[in-house]
């Protein structure tokens, strides 16, 4: 059984102003206790999630956060060794990613990570403009990023992702172009471009809702920024393989793709989500509960067993995120019923609206459909 593993590190140096992920600064003691709890969770995962470790073929491991790079490499080593002990051995083909912040990405650190078998880096750049970096509350500047990127190559990373953001307050096509130019110069293998979402509970929410909303790009501007990213990157030879993701040929993220293809994955760590045996799990996001019971079922906060209907819906709204879309023959193979039988009416309606295309075996979003993704996805809920 193919299996992905996600490991959540809920620590960072300082929280960015827009961030609503489960992440906070912490002391050495807390980090150490957390890693111990993680190790216990990995040990107990078979019982906790009802998974047969022996049957699992690990396709990808993703260490995300937070800023996992702010954790001492010794800890990362412990985590990977534990995973290897139970789910290994991992081959070169196993994609092992870690997210890092340019501010904590010096050469020795990166070399250390590379030696642990980590073969993919995800670096949060967000913007190449100093004013935008300050606005976002990032802890690094443009130069730190460049240095980090170059060190990463020097440390041997041949598969590097860079995150950038669009729809920033005051962002213009010109400013975005500065960021895109830096990418062109450095030529990372994979690029994720996310639109800024103003989430409740973040400082940005207070700053950019109500009156402050005017400071954000309009819908037209936001879309034009999005298409600027798409056009520039595809022009540079990147494939636009998912709504927000671009890759050089062969560098599509295995881990993210496994989410969209509904490949089972273990979610380890505080607040992490997983999909095992068609059940969606979510760990507790309460640190005390997690530290006490990470290896036990009681640290699972939600467990939702998916019905056939749920699985069909997911297949559509996750699958359509990929530009290749959903294969009708795989749909039939998975559910024993044809996609047209279930969604015939919606398919016709959405096609008439110019939001999806149906070509041979595949249903996929058109460019216009990409602009209205949520509308399209919601249409596939049964």
């Amino acid at each position, binding site marked *: 059984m193919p299996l992905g593993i996600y490991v959540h590190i809920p620590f960072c140096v300082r929280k960015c102003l827009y961030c609503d*992920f489960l992440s906070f600064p912490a002391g050495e003691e807390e980090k150490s206790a957390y890693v111990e709890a993680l190790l216990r969770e990995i040990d107990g995962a078979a019982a906790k999630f009802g998974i047969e470790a022996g049957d699992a073929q690990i396709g990808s491991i993703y260490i995300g956060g937070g800023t996992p790079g702010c954790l001492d490499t010794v800890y990362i080593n412990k985590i990977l060794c534990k995973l290897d002990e139970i789910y290994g051995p991992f081959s070169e083909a196993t994609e092992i990613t870690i997210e890092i912040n340019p501010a904590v990405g010096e050469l020795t650190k990166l070399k250390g990570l590379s030696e642990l078998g980590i073969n993919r880096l995800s670096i949060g750049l967000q913007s190449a403009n100093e004013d935008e970096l300050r606005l976002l509350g990032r802890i690094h500047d443009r130069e730190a990023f460049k240095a980090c990127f170059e060190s990463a190559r020097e440390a041997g990373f041949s598969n590097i992702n860079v995150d950038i953001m669009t729809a920033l307050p005051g962002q213009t096509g010109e400013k975005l172009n500065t960021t895109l130019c830096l990418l062109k110069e450095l030529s990372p293998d994979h690029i994720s471009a996310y639109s800024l979402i103003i989430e409740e509970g973040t400082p940005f929410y207070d700053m950019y809702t109500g009156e402050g909303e005017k400071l954000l790009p309009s819908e037209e501007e936001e879309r034009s920024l*999005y298409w600027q990213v798409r056009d520039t990157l595809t022009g540079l030879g990147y494939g636009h393989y998912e709504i927000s993701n671009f890759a050089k040929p062969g560098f599509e993220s295995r881990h993210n793709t496994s989410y969209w293809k509904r490949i089972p994955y273990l979610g380890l760590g505080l607040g992490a*989500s997983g999909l095992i045996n068609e059940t969606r799990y979510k760990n507790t996001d309460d640190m005390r509960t997690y530290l006490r019971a990470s290896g036990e079922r009681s640290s699972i906060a939600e467990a939702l067993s998916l019905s056939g209907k749920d699985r069909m819906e997911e297949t559509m709204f996750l699958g359509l995120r990929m530009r290749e879309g959903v294969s009708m023959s795989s749909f039939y193979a998975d559910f024993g019923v044809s996609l047209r039988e279930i969604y015939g009416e919606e398919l016709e309606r959405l096609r008439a*609206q110019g939001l999806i295309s149906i070509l041979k075996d595949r249903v996929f979003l058109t460019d216009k459909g990409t*602009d209205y993704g*949520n509308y399209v996805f919601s249409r596939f*809920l049964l």
Partner: protein
Amino acid sequence: MSYTDQDRIRNFCIIAHIDHGKSTLADRIIESTGLLTSREMQAQVLDNMDLERERGITIKAQAVRTIYKAKDGNEYCFNLIDTPGHVDFNYEVSRSLAACDGAILVVDAAQGIEAQTLANVYLALDHDLDVFPVINKIDLPSAEPDRVVAEIEDVIGIEAQDAPRISAKNGIGIDEVLEQVVKKIPAPTGDPDAPLRALIFDSIYDSYKGAIVFIRLMDGTIKKGTPIRMMATGASFETVEVGYFGAGQFIPCDELRAGMVGYFTASIKNVSDTAVGDTVTGSDRPCSEPLPGYKKVLSMVYCGVYPADGAKYPDLRDALEKLKLNDASLNYEPETSVALGFGFRCGFLGLLHLEVIQERLEREYNLDLVTTAPSVIYKVHKTNGEVIDLTNPTNLPDPSEIDYMEEPVVSAEIMVTKDFVGPIMELCQERRGRYVSMEYIEQSRALLKYELPLNEIIYDFFDALKSRSRGYASFDYDLKGYERATLVRLDILVNHEEVDALSFIVHSDTAYERGRRMCEKLKEEIPRHLFEIPIQAAVGGKIIARETIKALRKDVLAKCYGGDITRKKKLLEKQKEGKKRMRQIGSVEIPQKAFMSVLKLDGE
């Protein structure tokens, strides 16, 4: 002698302006006469429909019998008849009053007399009821009982010096109220040996027993097996059961005699055979004259009621049939709309009645409804001499066939404090009101009388009145008659398509303004689509107003939520849920509540 003797019976009701404490006092009376312990008592026993309890108003009349041991050592039988408390139900109120011999007038010690206080007192005096006042809420810091007593004497002209000063909420002064019921409300009269003559003041439907008919016996006796006839409808039955009203239950007894209040059943399957106000008599020994005051109840307000999901049409029909069993004043007949499909044109006593029915359909029958703008009944005089009662704007004949039209007009009384006389008069003018008179009933308050077209008040008049008087104005009205008016039909086009369900009749002078506001309102209500949507208002094919809903440019979350698919799905579900409450008209999805937009045009 026992409490079933005529001179130990007291049949009375409580009248009050809304929120002056009518239901609370009723609860206290029931409680302190020992019918229920306070533990058993759910607040406001008489208002037993969920909706009534929530809204704090009485929709159907209710009755309850309690036994009170007075200070003179005798036991008295109290029949407390609760009356509906809203102008929509004036006829029902008048029939309930006719079943009583006296009334307790509750006046709020802080607010004093309000419009409904007066309207109800006059109604009670019209029915020759003996009215005694009670000053409620004396525990409020703002209470001014002396002022209110003087006001009652000055304005209404009834003795109020010894009015009990009470707090129904805190149970203060209730004993005095009960004693005054004995002393001041007359015992019923009537001959138990005369031919049967009983007034129907309400009925409810029970699926086993058929209609349970609430009656007040004026003359004669009714018992199990008595053959009876309804004098107005002519229907004949044989009595199956007679009884009186316990708290929330029916208690059978052997017979009911002149002066008593109770119920009977007679396997009556059709509630239209038990019209409120009708007289029940014996079919073998009928009385010579029916009781006065019977009227056939007429609907004042009509609107289209459609199932949101067309497939639920049979469910809606069944639900209306069931509601009709308990509510003879609800009328409905099937109609079709191009925009909304199959539904019903329903007639109501007023806007509150409409809202209540709509809510009951949604809540008790779990139906998702689309209701169209309410309309009054217009009289269309055609050039060929024919007169049509128009209840649906869509059926308005071509203007070339219309000679002239008439609309219903009401006499309205508005009581308002001095400071707000200006704004309220302005409001009445805007609503095409005709000033009749104004009198100051005391230095600070005025009673304004206006004649207003009914179609100007069924929408948002009450809300506008409240907001322009900061809640201080109170309002009551009576149908006066029909008057000639220049009326036109305002049509609404959404994306160049006329939506029949949004059409409504307006006075030609206000058509432009209403059309403009309607377009603005719909622009707010209809969500943006993937394309631009023009919204136009037209009269006789001529566009008089336009708004444009800009196209939606994007609807996408370019974020993955770290594999938290459940959260993502919840967001999509919310989005889909919103869609469900939409109605597809051509290529545009219109939210259900947009069809009632016309009710909310008083923006300023």
